[in-house]
């Protein structure tokens, strides 16, 4: 009984978020027109849960018979997902009223999705990893289709659902084969005897299938087909949450699984991983050039960013793992901000996120344009913004570990990406506006965007502090 209590306490951020989500859905069921109440309860609850995550940070270890990781890595990622969920909720308040899906369930789904992400990223047993993955994915399927009268949203939800479930099938089959070979689903248990299985064909097939499942979730080429369609069709705030939270969760889980079984990965999988990385960087950044819709462009850019992070995972070693985590944090702030601006520009029919709609934004909404500029520069990786240090750490670690060629591809594709990111900036600042209304900006939206921008600046100005949190996590 005491053990149960201690375990629950040590996994407090996850438990707290689930409780919060349940409270929100209960309020929604009991009370009519309770959107404002749910909004504030969600925000206060998220703040409290971030506090719990900070409190649990030193409690490094595992809970529930070694199935869930506590403290350290789990707390850090939990805080990242909670920040992403909080910013998404602030941004979505005005947005869901604009597009007419102002249901309290929206907040519930975001909170449950965040709980799923934390579980996904903290699971050290493949059962927990799988349940977390599905909790996150199911919430996101529902969120993608939440504006149910809009064809685009239906279509995005259907595609996301079918391809996501398809990928889960591969993920599971991989787990089944690994279980069959090793007799356990615990990652540490698998890692212990890895030398014995390393060259077993069935184990390798299992690990490969698991990697296919992960590659689907992070949107790495060639498993990226769903990314542009889903990010474009979903309500923009949901795309923001998906592209930051879901991607970060998949990467965190990948890190956890792959650091535990590191020797194996390094000897058998790095060719596959580097191919995925190169393909993602090239396809993502090159196809993004031809996009005219900003949401779709950001989707392709997120494929490219998955490629950069895969370099870090390929290179391995503590420095590059910390680099990937750093990249996730900077990317979370940046992409949330970029999608956030798009969600404010967008009109009530969920149209109007084309590049044309950004033309001369500076003359209509100067603050919005400046913020979008910051996000774009951070995505390019211009110092002193956070995006620069993310790329820097990953590239340095890759060179140290002898993956210079991956770094060269990374730098070249970053050069390519300058073109399409800066095109947005040029359009906003140096082109005369057409006859168009200025988009409605709410105080909540401004606050969320400012928080994102400050996050980028702080992480970029004091990268050593953020890296300090990651000291000895791996």
């Amino acid at each position, binding site marked *: 009984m005491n053990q149960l209590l201690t375990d629950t306490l040590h996994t407090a951020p996850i438990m707290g978020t689930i409780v919060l989500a349940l409270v929100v859905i209960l309020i929604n069921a009991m009370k009519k027109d309770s959107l404002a109440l749910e909004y504030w309860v969600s925000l206060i609850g998220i703040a409290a849960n971030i506090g719990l995550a900070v409190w649990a940070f030193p409690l490094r270890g595992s809970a529930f018979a070694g199935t869930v990781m506590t403290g350290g890595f789990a707390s850090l990622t939990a805080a990242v997902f909670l920040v992403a969920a909080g910013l998404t909720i602030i941004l979505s308040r005005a947005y869901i009223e604009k597009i007419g899906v102002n249901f309290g369930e929206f907040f519930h789904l975001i909170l449950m999705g965040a709980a799923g992400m934390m579980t996904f990223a903290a699971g050290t047993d*493949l*059962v927990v990893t*799988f*349940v977390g993955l*599905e909790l996150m994915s*199911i919430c996101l*399927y*529902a969120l993608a*289709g939440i504006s*149910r*009268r809009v*064809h*685009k949203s*239906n*279509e*995005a*939800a*259907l*595609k996301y*659902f*079918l391809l996501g*479930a*398809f990928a*889960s*099938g591969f993920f*599971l*089959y991989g*787990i*089944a*084969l690994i*279980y*069959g070979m090793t*007799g*356990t*689903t615990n990652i540490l248990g698998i890692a212990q005897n890895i030398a014995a299985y390393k060259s077993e064909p069935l184990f390798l097939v299992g690990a490969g299938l698991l990697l296919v499942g992960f590659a689907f979730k992070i949107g790495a080429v060639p498993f990226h087909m769903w990314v*542009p*369609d889903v990010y*474009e*069709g979903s309500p923009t705030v949901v795309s923001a949450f998906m592209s930051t939270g879901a991607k970060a969760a998949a990467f965190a889980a990948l890190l956890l699984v792959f650091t535990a079984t590191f020797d194996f990965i390094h000897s058998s999988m790095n060719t596959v991983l580097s191919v995925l990385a190169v393909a993602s960087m090239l396809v993502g950044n090159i*196809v993004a050039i*031809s*996009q005219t819709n900003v949401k*779709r462009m950001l989707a392709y850019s997120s494929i490219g960013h998955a490629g950069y992070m895969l370099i870090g995972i390929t290179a391995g070693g503590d420095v590059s793992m910390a680099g990937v985590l750093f990249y996730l944090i900077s990317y979370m702030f940046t992409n949330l901000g970029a999608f956030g601006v798009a969600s404010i520009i967008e009109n009530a029919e969920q149209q109007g996120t084309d590049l044309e709609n950004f033309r001369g934004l500076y003359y209509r909404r100067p603050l919005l344009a400046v913020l979008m500029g910051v996000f774009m520069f951070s995505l390019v990786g211009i110092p002193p913004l956070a995006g620069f240090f993310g790329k820097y750490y990953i590239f340095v670690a890759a060179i140290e570990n002898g993956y210079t060629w991956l770094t060269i591809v990374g730098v070249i594709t970053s050069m390519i990406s300058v073109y399409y990111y800066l095109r947005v900036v040029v359009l906003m600042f140096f082109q005369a506006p057409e006859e168009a209304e200025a988009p409605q900006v709410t105080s909540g939206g401004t606050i969320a965007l400012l928080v994102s921008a400050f996050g980028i600046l702080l992480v970029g100005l004091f990268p050593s502090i953020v890296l300090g949190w990651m000291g000895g996590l791996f």
Partner: protein
Amino acid sequence: MIPVHYYLILSAVMFITGVVGVLTRRNAIIIFMCIELMLNSVNLTFVAFSSYLGNEAGQMFVFFVMAVAAAEAAVGLAIVIALFRNKQTVNINEVNILKW
């Protein structure tokens, strides 16, 4: 005692049948049924290994897979219904506003 290979081959065949179905069929509901076939072939693999290894972790995993599949079905069918109300079709070839 039936050797474990038989189960594994059967489940591999089931899994690939599901994959082929997902890739070739055009009706969203049938695609979803093929995905369920994939999940169930995984369940069969788990149970076969579990009984072969004399270790109940695999059976426990099957419970989770079943529960998750049910939740997935609930959300997935709701999405299909929403789509059908708007477009009067569940053929994924006609679901094509989004493309590059």
